[in-house]
């Protein structure tokens, strides 16, 4: 009975995502990103002295550009999922859609799990399709293929999952629009804190470096993003660029540790649990 309800709600959430304007907006933004990056990369090879660069330098530029474009993609995914996850719960509670659904013989935690699974499927599906298209665009235009595309896309998908779980938790306590805004705001703030921390590390300032570390623990989006970047970028980049580029925001120095991945999984489980507790206790 529970599995049937979870699958029904997950399917409903996917259908909602597919039929609402969010999907169209997401598709337009992604196509714009794909088109612009394809055009940009092709201009780069055609007009600049890209051809005169050594193969190592060319790979370096291409790998940096891929990270930059993937950052754009992760931003689109973050916005898309946060603004899908927000309205899906609190929007339905506000409008009254939730009343008739929750008066059925279903547990609220089951409904929440179904929603979450539907959003995860949607967010991860989007990342895989759009991310793979971006990789292909880069491959076709500048002939660069990331070393670990599967791991990188999985980490990007994990980042989306983290953010949509946060969006779900927020939407059980605040209004739909506010939850989307807060989730995206926190995502941006963590990224900036990560950049600040990177600069701190480059300068050898432990206090500033700790800002990045702490923010990465509090909200694992930036940590996962750095892991994804590391898997997208050419392994020789770090040695080539040297210490002058320490703290550069589109460069990741180390792969993710298993401990951090485990923490991210635990974080998602805890935030989901909080969302469930908050949703179960809520008066509709």
């Amino acid at each position, binding site marked *: *009975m529970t599995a*049937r*309800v979870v699958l*029904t709600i997950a399917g*409903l959430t996917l*259908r*909602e995502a597919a*039929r*609402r304007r969010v999907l169209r907006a997401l598709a337009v933004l992604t196509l714009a990103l794909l088109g612009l990056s394809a055009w940009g990369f092709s201009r780069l090879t055609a007009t600049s002295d890209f051809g005169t660069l050594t193969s190592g330098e060319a790979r370096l530029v291409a790998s940096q550009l891929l990270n930059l474009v993937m950052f754009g993609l992760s931003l689109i995914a973050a916005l898309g999922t946060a603004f899908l996850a927000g309205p899906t719960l609190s929007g339905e509670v506000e*409008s*009254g*859609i939730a*009343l*008739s*659904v*929750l*008066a*059925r*013989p*279903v*547990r609220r935690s089951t409904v929440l799990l179904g929603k979450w699974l539907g959003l995860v499927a949607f967010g991860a599906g989007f990342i895989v399709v759009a991310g793979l298209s971006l990789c292909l665009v880069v491959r076709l235009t500048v002939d660069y293929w990331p070393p670990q595309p599967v791991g990188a896309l999985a980490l990007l998908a994990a980042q989306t999952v983290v953010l949509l779980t946060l969006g779900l938790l927020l939407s059980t306590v605040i209004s739909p629009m506010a939850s989307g805004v807060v989730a995206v705001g926190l995502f941006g703030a963590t990224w900036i804190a990560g950049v600040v921390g990177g600069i701190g590390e480059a300068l050898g300032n432990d206090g500033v470096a700790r800002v990045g570390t702490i923010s990465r623990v509090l909200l694992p989006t930036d940590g996962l993003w750095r892991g994804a970047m590391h898997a997208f970028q050419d392994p020789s980049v770090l040695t080539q660029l040297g210490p002058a580029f320490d703290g550069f925001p589109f460069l990741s120095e180390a792969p993710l540790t298993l401990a951090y991945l485990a923490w991210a999984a635990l974080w998602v489980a805890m935030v989901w649990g909080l969302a469930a507790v908050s949703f179960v*206790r809520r*008066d*509709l």
Partner: protein
Amino acid sequence: MAPDSTALGDGAVRAAADLVAGLPPTAAVWCTGLRKRYGRHQAVDGVSFQVARGEVLGLLGPNGAGKTTVIKMLLGLVRPDAGEVMLLGRPASDPRARVRVGYLPELFRYQPWLTATEVLALHVRLAGVRVPAAEQRECLALVGLADHAADHAAGRAADRVGGFSKGMQQRLGLAVALVARPEFVVLDEPTSALDPLGRVDVRDLVLALRARGVAVLLNSHLIGEVERVCDRVVILDRGRVAAAGTLTELLGQREVRLELTAVPPAAQARLAAAGVVDIAGDWVTVALPADDDGTAVPDLVADLVALGVRVHAVEPGRISLEERLLGILRTGAEEPR
């Protein structure tokens, strides 16, 4: 099962069957001592009532009396601070209690990106009840959305619920409440968005449900609607049950209007003993006891005349549910059940 055990248990089985048949059927809903506080506001304060199987119960009361909160507590949508609810024989905290419950919320909205047919299919799946597609279409036709069901059957692109008018959405809500073969239906203001014709449809629908033995809890501002279809009425005021009873119990009470002059104190005492409802100038309205055997009015008039009162007019009257409701709400008095 072995044949000898059947033979052995025959008498026992019959005895058990008789015992079960003799048990009163569990109520569609039974609640006791429901309380709910929102901040400083005590929205519901010790509400208890029950709806028997196949009975139509009307919930009446002014705005803010706590009617919708009570309904939401019955359905597990709002957590009561105190009190107990049994739905169709199960505690309401068990979601399975709601398998055979249909609900039309006061704030009715359905997934705007789905068609009417899809909304019904969704609710049937969530209820875990097998209802053939044809029966689901019949349900849409029953509430006057047959065109939309037909559209879907013909394979045409059916309209999404987002494009529905308020009235159409409320009709869809009725279909949602009825589609999973409910044994208990809760209708919270089911006609708020309907035109007079739609209201008649809803009235017929409630009567048809009662004829099929389905219990209905009807919350409505339209007293006339309640008066026409309800077997019993619970009147809520400021979160409490102000009165409850069958319509005959609440309305069977008759009254008499008297035009009197020269009323001495002794006659006033006699009137008060008879049950004065209202005094306006020379006109005195007296509520008659429910168990009146036809002697109350002549006795009262004879006594008044004997006391020297000049009686100009005696008019019989019958209290409408509306007057009764207003009377109860104005005095706030607890009425005998």
